């Protein structure tokens, strides 16, 4: 047995030990997750920039096609085409406030990945765990295709395809496919596929669950098959375009990008793209025949096709926007799938909040009025009426309501404020408000980024593994 296989088997065992109480065996899902021959095919790469401290430490790991930025340690782990973005980690002397506690960091925060397998997974943001503010840990964890681990330290967890855990510490949990969890802390919890749960204890609790028969058309995971569904097919159909940008060391620069905007070298840019000032296009984003107005952003694994984004739009990690027109300040949450079609375009009015993991898949034109919150599955006007609410109405909710498959308890105004504050923070961090040298963010800073590659062993017992390396200035 080669080293790579031994490593993977060890990770599977460790995750299974953690999930024994939930009686969950990840082995059937892990079996075909990463064909070993793929692990020696792709180089890993890392960014060098003056804006983020660099310290990378790789030990007994396989890193095929993965990207690293900032401070990160990877031990006994297998990462496949994953993005480990440490550009929002906390820095030394940063003051961290939690409830009535205030702590000052004695050193820079680091992403620490150990005994884990991450496949096409995005790791971003910083640890929101009040007990480990200097370490964003991910251990004994298996994350499947297009999962997002966003500010969410993890120990002993399984994340299904397209699962997102956001600003939440998780221990010994199973997060089903296409579920989105933002709940602070979760333990020993099994989350069914298609669960959207946003909980701020004492403030609000938002819970929606897709009907399994509706969700399985889009994402389906079973022990005896690789993940399949419309979302997987959608990405597969565009896979070759990504291959092109990863195959070439130097790509021709696109001249039409304004100086204040940033277009990542590993984004796919198809014909007819207009990019305004302060736009941020992250790596593995895919743009085709679209307009991005001032301050708009397209984060990792986004797809924007035949669409127009008026400006200051947040398109969060993994969101897909097709044949749609979005007004200003529209937020599209993680992994949402907005699927208009030719002759059946989707129009979204300004200031709308499309909740994470929302699916809008229409065969008739649909217009979402300005200032609405939209969630769940929307296929037509009838669904929209059930799965949306004006922000004004939501602001007036004082205790609870049930609408369709949505359960809400708490104050609606606090949910609205939490999202609006976060959208503003994202735009600020991304440099959307940059003006005359002030309010610079990722869009301006990422221009000063260069990339280096590292290669795996190509032969022998260690084929597919990477040498132990420490990279620091």
């Amino acid at each position: 047995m080669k080293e790579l296989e031994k490593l993977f088997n060890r990770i599977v065992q460790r995750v299974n030990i953690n999930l024994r109480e939930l009686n969950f065996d990840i082995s059937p899902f892990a079996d075909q997750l990463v064909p070993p021959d793929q692990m020696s095919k792709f180089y890993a790469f890392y960014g060098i920039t003056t804006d983020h401290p660099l310290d990378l430490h790789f030990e007994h790991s396989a890193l095929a096609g993965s990207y690293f930025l900032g401070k990160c340690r990877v031990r006994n782990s297998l990462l496949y085409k994953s993005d480990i973005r440490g550009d929002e980690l906390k820095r030394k002397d940063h003051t961290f406030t939690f409830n009535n506690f205030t702590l000052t960091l004695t050193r820079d925060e680091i992403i620490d990945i150990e005994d884990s397998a991450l496949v096409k997974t995005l790791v971003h943001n910083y640890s929101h765990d009040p007990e480990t503010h200097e370490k964003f840990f991910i251990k004994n964890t298996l994350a499947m295709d297009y999962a997002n681990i966003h500010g969410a330290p993890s120990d002993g967890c399984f994340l299904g395809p397209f699962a997102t855990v956001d600003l939440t510490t998780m221990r010994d949990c199973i997060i089903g496919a296409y579920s989105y969890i933002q709940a602070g802390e979760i333990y020993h919890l099994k989350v069914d596929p298609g669960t959207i749960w946003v909980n701020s204890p004492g403030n609000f609790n938002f819970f929606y669950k897709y009907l399994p028969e509706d969700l399985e058309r889009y994402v389906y995971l079973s022990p005896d098959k690789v993940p399949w569904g419309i979302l997987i097919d959608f990405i597969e159909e565009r896979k070759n375009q990504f291959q092109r940008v990863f195959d070439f060391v130097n790509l021709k620069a696109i001249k039409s990008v304004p100086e204040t905007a940033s277009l990542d070298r590993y984004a796919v840019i198809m014909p007819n793209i207009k990019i305004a000032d302060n736009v941020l296009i992250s790596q593995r984003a895919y743009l085709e025949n679209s307009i991005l107005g001032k301050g708009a952003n397209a984060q990792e694994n986004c797809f924007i096709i035949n669409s127009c984004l008026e400006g200051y739009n947040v398109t969060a990690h993994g969101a897909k926007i097709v044949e749609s027109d979005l007004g200003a300040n529209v937020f599209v949450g993680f992994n949402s799938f907005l699927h208009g079609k030719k002759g059946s375009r989707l129009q979204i009015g300004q200031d709308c909040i499309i909740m994470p993991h929302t699916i809008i898949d229409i065969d008739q034109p649909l217009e979402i009025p300005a200032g609405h919150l939209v969630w769940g599955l929307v296929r037509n006007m009838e669904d929209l009426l059930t799965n949306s609410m004006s922000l004004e109405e939501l602001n007036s909710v004082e205790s609870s309501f049930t609408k369709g498959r949505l359960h809400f308890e708490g104050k609606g105004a606090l949910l609205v404020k939490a999202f609006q504050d976060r959208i503003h923070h994202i735009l600020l961090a991304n440099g959307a408000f940059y003006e005359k040298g002030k309010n610079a963010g990722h869009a301006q800073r990422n221009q000063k980024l260069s990339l280096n590659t590292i290669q795996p062993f190509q032969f022998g017992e260690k084929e597919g593994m990477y040498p132990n390396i420490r990279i620091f200035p």
Partner: protein
Amino acid sequence: MDNFLVRDLMVPISEYATVVVGTSLIDAVKALEQAQETFTMSKYHHLAILVLDERGQVVGKISQLLALKAIEPEVTLKFEIERLREFNFSDAYLAQLRDLYRSHGKIMSKDSLRQASVKKVEEFMQTPSPGEFVSETSSLDTAIHRLVTGTHLSLLVTRGEKIVGILRMPDVFAAVFHKMTALEKAP
């Protein structure tokens, strides 16, 4: 009376309402009615039906409450409400949700009654818990203790491995308070 044993108060299983696994709710209720008509040992009617497997072993019990629960529609929704507890929803919200779902699903309608009547007993029977058994040679003290601590309406009476009868709470209640009344009258 002080020396009463469980077997002195139990109803033999042959006189009790029993059905086999696979019986429908409506047939189980008919079996209960029939058993009540033929049972004359006590003024108290049988309130439960025992479910037997193919070997004649008791594998479950159906009370009137369980039968009523079985005819409540929207089982899936009820399950979902219970799961919401894991996701930090308050008891007040869950109670409100139950009322909401109840108002949607009418119980006393032809459709839901017809649907419920064909449900198999094993879908809603209660499997006996370890504290629900008592030996036929046990004292009444032991039986009362088990009824009270387990809040059971009846106990299954055993002889070795075999279930030979059922000890009903009304019979125990009557025996206890008969003795109490007798003591009051005594000099």
